[in-house]
């Protein structure tokens, strides 16, 4: 991925009215060639780092004014390249900026991802937002504040260390005061950040570390236009697309004349097998789309594997092995425990089908999208439209929660294509429910195998683990990763992912247990062929790998006749891990040897997300109806350690949500299909969690770690949440189920056999 040269230029021209082309290029330091293995936020690709020594996203965007702008009227604006996805990032980065800049929270303005305005931070993915963007904004804000203090020191003729910043002004002990607006000159902060900053210590925090109400919620609960779905620019028309009936289908023929003649229809768009319609009114567009669907003649082919024996089919796919951990020693094993776990394809299932707005004006296509990555989409859409990248601008606008790579980027591409047909008119495209369900990229089906050897006390002495999985990442990037780009004339091919073993992990994420096992071997059998469209769902492989590890740890604890919390602590050396385990047990009132009421069960699980982000443990009590297999979660407790805390209520909301979402995956979810078509096309054919299976409360405590780096927390609870639920069900029914989801039928069958 190229550095953000172009956007920097256009950003300056937008903000300052000067196309500081020379400045932007001259500021690139010689170290810009340095590349590192990218994170999930960078699509696991190597990226240029203009300043590898700087913290967070300053590495790739080192200019202070990429992050903070102070205007002559004293108003301060914060820029982030991370998208608000419902995780509360807008509020969190404003808390960080307010704290370090010493400007009141309510007075800060925020510019979100926009290829003409914001820094390029790749994707909003992998729980990186506070870690990367938050760290950059924190350091940039602190450095801007110190620059302004230094400026005031010169003006007051006083030593800088006698001055303090407060409420958007610098104040001297003698009462002299200069506002940031009075002190600022644009060039003061048109400089590269320094490696170290004078950060505000935790004990002096007034904004960070305190629960902050989210800035977006009042608008969302009162009907303010809050989402891309709500945008209604003048002259807007409604677009709908017709998706093929199945992934292998090609459009054989269609007579569109009857649809073109429908009152209110503006245009039918046909480009290869890409089919869409534009109308003045939304309902007319929908009716026209439905008519087009019935008129279109498709050639379908059976490209799907069918669901029978899916795990065996996955394991039989061509594979390349990636060694995640190889630290084998000769051990004395008293016993060996083996298990195999299977997970179906699962979907993001956003409540709002993906939507985008596109407009072609003067040769430039502007797209508003709820994408997680405006810059990657800009590149992919330009490639699809076969125009220079300067002729595409992508601006983030919020949508329904996506939980990863859903159909957001496809909808952005759909809107861009439709906009080409009606220059000057903004085109609003929303997918229909069945299109979102059937065409979003799923979390891959997975198989795992554990072989754990234990000593005479039942402690693990060797851990051998295999995971069979596709890549969990087919994001754009390349145009072929946008669904409509594959169907247009001279269409693009999906870029087949390559096996990469990275610190953050992909299908192998969290496959290497954090437990201190003396001997281990972990391998990812990377499945290159992708019979179903797959990509990133919250946590990637972490959910399934943690599920496999934590289910097994409970079975090993049972075999060793040791309490499962105690058993985990025996194998955990990381003090912060031990703290979340102990804290969760204490919150829950966990007791060794506790006896549950009949048909109740207690479950516990732990993971550190990616083995390098937030720590989280979950304890849960469930009630199972053996005669129906129905599960109700009665209560749950969770402690998390996310490093330095920005918004404790935001973390709690994410942890609670993650536990519920994982409970839904664990109990109900699996995409269905035959050999040709996806058959999970609505909420009746893909059921998810409803209120009646949930408790009234999930207690979350966030362990404070003052002065430590931020640890991404947005995806930390899915693994432990799903596993604690499975362990609680096992405790209740006396039998473990190894095949996800833990459906009513399987639970009923297991409970009656037990």
């Amino acid at each position, binding site marked *: 991925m190229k550095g953000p040269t172009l956007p920097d230029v256009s950003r300056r021209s937008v903000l300052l009215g000067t196309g500081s082309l020379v400045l932007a290029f001259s500021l690139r330091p010689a170290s810009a060639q340095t590349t590192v293995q990218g994170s999930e936020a960078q699509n696991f690709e190597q990226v240029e780092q203009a300043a590898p020594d700087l913290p967070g996203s300053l590495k790739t965007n080192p200019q202070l004014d990429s992050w903070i702008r102070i205007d002559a009227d004293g108003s301060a604006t914060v820029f982030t390249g991370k998208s608000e996805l419902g995780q509360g990032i807008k509020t969190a980065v404003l808390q960080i900026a307010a704290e370090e800049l010493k400007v009141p929270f309510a007075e800060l303005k925020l510019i979100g991802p926009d290829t003409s305005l914001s820094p390029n931070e790749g994707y909003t993915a992998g729980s990186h937002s506070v870690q990367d963007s938050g760290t950059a904004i924190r350091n940039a804000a602190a450095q801007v504040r110190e620059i302004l203090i230094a400026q005031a020191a010169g003006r007051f003729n006083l030593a800088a260390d006698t001055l303090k910043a407060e409420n958007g002004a610098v104040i001297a002990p003698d009462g002299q005061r200069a506002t940031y607006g009075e002190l600022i000159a644009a060039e003061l902060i048109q400089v590269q950040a320094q490696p170290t900053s004078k950060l505000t210590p935790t004990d002096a925090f007034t904004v960070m570390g305190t629960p902050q109400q989210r800035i977006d919620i009042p608008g*969302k609960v009162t009907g303010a236009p809050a989402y891309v779905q709500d945008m209604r620019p003048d002259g807007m028309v409604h677009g709908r697309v017709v998706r093929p009936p199945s992934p292998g289908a090609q459009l054989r023929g269609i007579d569109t004349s009857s649809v073109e003649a429908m009152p209110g229809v503006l245009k039918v768009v046909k480009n290869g097998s890409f089919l869409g319609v534009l109308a003045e009114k939304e309902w007319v567009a929908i009716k026209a789309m439905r008519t087009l669907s019935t008129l279109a003649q498709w050639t379908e082919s059976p490209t799907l594997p069918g669901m029978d024996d899916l795990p065996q089919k996955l394991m039989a796919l061509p594979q390349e092995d990636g060694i995640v951990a190889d630290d084998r020693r000769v051990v004395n094993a008293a016993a060996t425990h083996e298990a195999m776990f299977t997970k179906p394809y699962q979907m993001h299932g*956003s409540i709002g089908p993906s939507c985008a707005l596109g407009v072609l004006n003067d040769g430039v296509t502007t797209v508003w999208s709820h994408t997680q990555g405006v810059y990657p989409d800009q590149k992919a859409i330009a490639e699809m439209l076969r125009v220079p990248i300067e002729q595409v601008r992508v601006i983030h606008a919020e949508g329904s929660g996506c939980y990863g790579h859903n159909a957001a980027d496809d909808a952005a591409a759909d809107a861009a294509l439709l906009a080409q047909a009606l220059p000057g008119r903004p085109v609003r495209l929303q997918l229909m*429910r069945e299109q979102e369900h059937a065409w979003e990229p799923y979390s891959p089906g997975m198989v795992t195998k554990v072989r754990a050897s234990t000593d005479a006390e039942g402690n693990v002495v060797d851990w051998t683990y295999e995971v069979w999985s596709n890549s969990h990442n087919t994001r754009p990037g390349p145009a072929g990763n946008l669904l409509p780009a594959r169907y247009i004339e001279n269409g693009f091919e999906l870029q087949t992912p390559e096996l990469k073993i990275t610190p953050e992990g992909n299908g192998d994420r969290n496959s290497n247990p954090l437990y201190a096992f003396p001997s281990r071997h972990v391998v990812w059998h990377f499945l290159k062929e992708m019979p179903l469209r797959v990509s990133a769902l919250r946590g990637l492989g972490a959910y399934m790998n943690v599920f496999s590890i934590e289910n097994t740890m409970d079975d090993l604890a049972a075999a060793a006749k040791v309490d499962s919390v105690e058993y985990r602590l025996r194998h955990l050396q990381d003090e912060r891990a031990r703290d979340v385990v102990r804290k969760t047990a204490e919150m829950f009132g966990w007791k060794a040897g506790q006896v549950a009421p009949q048909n109740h069960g207690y479950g516990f699980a732990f993971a550190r997300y990616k083995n390098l982000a937030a720590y989280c443990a979950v304890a849960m009590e469930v009630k199972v109806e053996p005669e129906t297999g129905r599960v109700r979660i009665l209560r749950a407790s969770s402690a998390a350690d996310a490093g330095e805390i920005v918004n404790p209520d935001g973390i709690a909301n994410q942890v609670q949500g993650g536990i519920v979402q994982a409970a839904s995956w664990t109990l109900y979810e699996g995409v269905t299909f035959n050999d040709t078509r996806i058959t999970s096309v609505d*909420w009746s054919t893909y059921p998810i969690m409803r209120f009646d299976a949930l408790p*009234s409360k999930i207690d979350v405590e966030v362990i404070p770690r003052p002065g430590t780096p931020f640890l991404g927390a947005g995806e930390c609870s899915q693994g432990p949440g799903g596993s604690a639920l499975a362990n609680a069900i096992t405790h209740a029914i006396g039998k473990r189920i190894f095949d996800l989801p833990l459906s009513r039928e399987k639970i009923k069958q297991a409970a009656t056999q037990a």
Partner: protein
Amino acid sequence: MVALTVNGQSREVEADGDTPLLYVLRDELQLHGAKYGCGLGQCGSCTVLVDGEAVFSCVTPVMLLEGREITTVEGLGTIESPGPMQAAFIEEQAAQCGYCIPGMMMRAQALLQRNPGASDEEIVAHMEPNLCRCGTHMRILAAIKRAASQMQTASNKPAASNQERAG
């Protein structure tokens, strides 16, 4: 032309009679609270009140609604002066992405208008049709309970509030 009463106001809109209410609200009246989620009556994100009952606006043709009272989330209050249900959702921070939330609020409003003293079990059973994918369920329930207690307090003191208004 269809004549509707929305949030207490008479509105005339240019729409075919078979148009689902959802599109009339959003596209003709610029009321964005109700959201398209499924178009099938399966998720509840389009929920509004018709004569006090929660209905799926995505499957309710507008021709059936002449002369009936339609209430959307915009009818519960404003950002400057949120109604009890909205204030409760803000207070409990009962949203992640928030897309399902207006539908949740309208379904809860239908119950609490009828029965502000609804039990926890009644609330859970009543909210069953509405889906949330972020996992905000517990906060949604907490917000509904908070709204219920505020509504009960308000309805127990009608004289006081009338006096305040008169004063």
